[in-house]
């Protein structure tokens, strides 16, 4: 194994299809028009010396090291900023160029520390490389002159010197090593789109400055790492590299945080991760990253990880550390006992959207074939199950229609109930890049999110009241239909025309107009009409949506309304358009694909279908139950009722993430055996009887499937600290229960999936290694996968329009609970925070805060930072207030990353009509001043502490 070296071509690739031929150093080369001479030379294998150029950002032309000579042209132009032209004859090396380059390097080095041996970039420094490349042997100016290097010069304070900025927990800024190439500033602007960095001053006074000469942590910097990656010296360096040293080998793998699915190089020294660097060939992220994937992997070796299996008879007892065999036999005996006593259907399991496809597949196989029932569900139940239902009804596939590259061809972006800048940051950066090029943006969200206003981005914002999505989307359809903006030719060709006519008549009713619905939605009818016109007529229109769509009583109806809009405007079936659910967790798409829902086998095929079920029966050599099993909320109800008594939960913290915590506590407490298979003693483990230690994404092989349907490899870079990868643990649990599953490697599991699932027929590890990644469907018809779906026709045949009547949720405000609470995420934290809270990311978000409008706060005597009591019909908690007009009057907002806040004590039992996806996004609440944590929080904390005790191991007497 060695370090993967990615070629830096110096300037970005040109998309032109016109080719140009020129001669560089006597060799003819043909490249697309618009390519720089620097890039053309590199493609031919000639590396022209450079410092300020890198292919992640546009050419800048400041370092003057990449000069070339062109026959017939005067002077020595910079090759990075000079485009190729037909017939040019270029020389990259001559006496004159050599002298010029040496002179430039001499000046750079005269103001640079010569501590190369002890420098963190030693072995990975472009300045060092260039000094070598140009043959620099002497610096005639000496090092005594005016400089930025030494704290003191000639016995006096050196005003040009600046101390290191170590405020960011993950990287340092050492201004003394800066060559002011602006690569960091341009990466922040062009790649990330945050514009946190600038160059202050001019000439010799030029300095990289976060914000207005602030610290990195104090500035707008979001710690995505793009600047660190771009820096050619040790000026911006990962603290892990400073501590450990340079990596010696690297492995390409996939991030285990959100559904964007960024590809990273895990750069290693032995089995120690030195750093995670985004991989330029990763098709989801194209070399970019966010603070989570790039830096927040410290949880993988956190001291709180549980590495030994544990059991206990009662949840009041302390945990007993035991051998794997003992734990597995204990669990198996409990589950078999429950099945004997209460029946075969009294146990079940939850697959993890954080684990690999292979692991998820095995858990559902264990439940269906080993437990003998279909009580399997996954966390997608509580996030994107309405997406599965809505898109399969209308289009015929339970997945997004595009790849992320598609955004580069989009003219109008419609974001509904999603905040990619916080939850899908790398996609947000790609989107913002397109917006800066001129695409238009419409945001439908109760809150003025970071997407609504950011540098060079200004969206048309429709701030609706939580719970009125269907009314707003049907009003958009009303405008499109009544103003004659529908794409009739598309609908006639691709959709069922009579269903369209029914739908058009339905939406055209006056009661669906923006004017008539404004009283419920709170959206200005003029703005809504403008949004409809822009989406319908502004060119390629693409819809991106998130949990603000799905987590409602009408979640599935909203997904259907979105699909209707896309079909009516012809925005389906080509690059730049489509309906794109932004998936929350790394493998939510995959866990759904792998048959994690109780009613369907892998590939979204209903369990009652004899032909499909028989294929699985033949492969697994068992008879399967043909009835759908329980969904997560149904499992809880059945537990309380006494007919569901055992649960195996892999990598999912249902107690913290599911709504109405008190109800979940009651359900878990009623069960006789809860097996938690996880990295940490999470909140659910407080009610568990068996704890099986889990492994991280760094410790196993497998695949994740991201929001684009892209299947990517996860590669093992270290031995599991707990001893086994999660797929091995599931196999061992099955064996203990008497159900054998034999696989030597996850690739064999994928082969079985491919054999049983038509959309995966062409997927294998060999294929993934060859292509890097592949988007399903991948089969004989599409051997390299399917970036854009529904080209030329819908998967289900004709696109289906379905009526979407707005039905207000029964969760209503009233005199006792006059405000609406909605929930969301923040950039630095991930989901229930089990991983990110165990990293330095807590410096950005140490606690959940309640956002409240100044008007509502004043009425209640709440000041910024005060503790407030947050109460709903389900429960109450306390947290601190943040006063902001990002939320409208009448609406409050919080995140759910911290267990001590327990935002889900507040959320209710209401759920989506079709899928039982909980209604997290609308809860009627009241706010009042408070002195601190509520009694419930104190009691919860006490129980958690008590439950997490691990009994000391007693040494046997001699």
């Amino acid at each position: 194994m060695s370090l993967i070296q990615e070629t830096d071509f110096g300037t970005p690739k040109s998309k032109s299809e016109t080719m140009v031929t020129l001669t560089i150093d006597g060799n003819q080369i043909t490249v697309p028009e618009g390519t720089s001479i620097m890039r053309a030379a590199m493609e031919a294998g000639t590396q022209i010396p450079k410092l300020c150029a890198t292919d992640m950002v546009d050419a800048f032309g400041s370092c003057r090291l990449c000069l070339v000579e062109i026959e017939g042209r005067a002077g020595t132009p910079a090759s990075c900023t000079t485009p190729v032209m037909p017939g040019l004859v270029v020389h990259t090396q001559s006496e004159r160029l050599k002298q010029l380059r040496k002179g430039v390097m001499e000046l750079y080095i005269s103001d640079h520390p010569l501590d190369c041996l002890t420098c963190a970039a030693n072995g990975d420094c472009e300045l060092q490389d260039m000094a070598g490349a140009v043959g620099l042997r002497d610096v005639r100016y000496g090092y005594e002159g005016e400089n930025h290097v030494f704290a003191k010069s000639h016995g006096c304070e050196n005003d040009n010197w600046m101390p290191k900025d170590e405020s960011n927990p993950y990287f340092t800024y050492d201004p003394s090593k800066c060559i002011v190439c602006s690569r960091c500033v341009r990466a922040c602007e062009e790649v990330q789109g945050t514009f946190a960095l600038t160059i202050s001053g001019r000439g010799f006074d030029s300095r990289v400055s976060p914000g207005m000469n602030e610290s990195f942590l104090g500035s707008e910097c979001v710690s995505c790492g793009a600047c660190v990656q771009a820096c050619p010296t040790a000026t911006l360096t990962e603290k892990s590299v400073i501590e450990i040293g340079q990596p010696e080998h690297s492995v390409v793998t996939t991030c285990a945080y959100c559904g964007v699915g960024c590809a990273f190089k895990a750069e290693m020294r032995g089995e120690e991760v030195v750093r995670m660097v985004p991989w330029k060939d990763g098709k989801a992220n194209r070399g970019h990253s966010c603070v989570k994937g790039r830096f927040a992997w410290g949880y993988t070796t956190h001291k709180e990880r549980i590495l030994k299996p544990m059991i206990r008879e009662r949840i009041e007892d302390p945990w007993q550390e035991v051998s794997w065999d003992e734990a597995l036999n204990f669990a198996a005996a409990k589950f078999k006992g429950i099945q004997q006593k209460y029946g075969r259907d009294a146990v079940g399991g939850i697959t993890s959207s954080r684990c690999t496809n292979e692991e998820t597949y095995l858990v559902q196989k264990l439940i269906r074939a080993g437990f003998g029932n279909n009580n399997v569900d996954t966390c997608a139940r509580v996030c994107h199950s309405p997406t599965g239902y809505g898109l399969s009804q209308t289009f015929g596939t339970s997945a997004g229609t595009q790849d992320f590259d598609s955004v580069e061809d989009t003219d109008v972006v419609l974001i509904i109930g999603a905040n990619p800048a916080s939850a899908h940051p790398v996609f947000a950066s790609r989107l913002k890049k397109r917006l800066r090029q001129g695409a238009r943006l419409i945001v439908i969200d109760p809150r003025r999110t970071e997407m609504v206003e950011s540098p060079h981005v200004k969206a048309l914002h429709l701030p609706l009241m939580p719970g009125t999505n269907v009314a707003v989307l049907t009003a958009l359809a009303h405008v499109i239909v009544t103003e004659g903006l529908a794409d009739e030719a598309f609908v006639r060709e691709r959709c069922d025309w009579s269903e369209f006519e029914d739908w058009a008549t339905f939406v055209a009713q006056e009661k669906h107009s923006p004017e008539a619905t404004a009283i419920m939605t709170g959206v200005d009818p003029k703005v809504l009409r403008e949004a409809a016109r822009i989406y319908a007529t502004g060119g390629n229109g693409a819809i991106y949506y998130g949990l603000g769509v799905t987590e409602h009583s009408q979640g599935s109806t909203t997904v259907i309304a979105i699909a209707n809009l896309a079909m009516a405007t012809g925005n389906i079936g080509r690059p730049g358009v489509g309906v794109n659910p932004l998936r929350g967790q790394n493998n939510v798409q995959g866990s759904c694909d792998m048959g994690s829902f109780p009613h369907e086998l892998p590939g979204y095929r209903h369990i009652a279908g004899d032909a499909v079920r028989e294929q699985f029966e033949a492969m697994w050599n068992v008879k399967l139950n043909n009835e759908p099993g329980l969904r997560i909320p149904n499992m809880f109800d059945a537990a309380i009722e006494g007919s569901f008594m055992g649960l195996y939960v892999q990598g999912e913290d249902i107690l913290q993430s599911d709504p109405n915590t008190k109800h979940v506590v009651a359900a878990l407490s009623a069960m006789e055996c809860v097996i938690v298979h996880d990295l940490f003693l999470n909140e659910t483990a407080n009610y568990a009887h068996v704890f099986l230690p889990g492994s991280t994404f760094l410790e196993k092989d497998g695949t994740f499937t991201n929001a684009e349907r892209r299947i990517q490899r996860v590669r093992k870079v270290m031995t599991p600290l707990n001893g086994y990868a999660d797929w091995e643990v599931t196999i061992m649990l099955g064996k203990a229960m008497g159900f054998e599953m034999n696989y030597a490697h996850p690739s064999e599991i994928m082969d079985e999936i491919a054999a049983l699932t038509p959309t995966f027929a062409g997927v294998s590890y060999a294929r993934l290694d060859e292509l890097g990644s592949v988007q399903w469907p991948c089969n004989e018809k599409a051997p390299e996968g399917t970036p854009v779906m529904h080209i030329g026709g819908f998967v289900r045949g004709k696109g289906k329009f379905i009526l979407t009547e707005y039905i207000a949720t029964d969760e209503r405000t009233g005199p006792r609970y006059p405000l609406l609470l909605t929930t969301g995420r923040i950039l630095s934290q991930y989901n229930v925070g089990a991983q990110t809270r165990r990293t330095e990311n807590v410096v950005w978000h140490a606690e959940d805060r309640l956002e409240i409008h100044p008007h509502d706060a004043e009425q209640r005597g709440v000041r910024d930072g005060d503790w407030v009591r947050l109460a709903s019909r389900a429960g109450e908690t306390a947290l601190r207030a943040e006063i902001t007009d990002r939320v409208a009057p009448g609406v409050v907002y919080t995140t759910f990353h911290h267990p001590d806040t327990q935002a889900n004590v507040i959320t209710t039992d209401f759920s989506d009509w079709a899928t039982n996806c909980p209604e997290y996004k609308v809860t009627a609440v009241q706010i009042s001043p408070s002195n601190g944590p509520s009694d419930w929080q104190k009691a919860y904390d006490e129980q958690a502490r008590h439950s997490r005790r691990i009994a000391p191991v007693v040494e046997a007497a001699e």
Partner: protein
Amino acid sequence: MSSSPDKLVYMANQIGKFFQSQGRDRAVQGISEHIWKFWDPRMRKQIFAHLDAGGTGLDPDVRDALQKLKQQA
């Protein structure tokens, strides 16, 4: 506190409300198909029992859909 039969009646009526705008025939068909596809047998058994006991609280379309489903079962 949580489950049967109130909660199941609520869930069934919620399904019914979605299909209501499609007209009675299609609604009855849609509701029964939905419950058949997504409800675990013990949930169906409970709602059938509730239906037999008079079906208090069930909306008319939902009642018809459950009758239909019960006959098929």
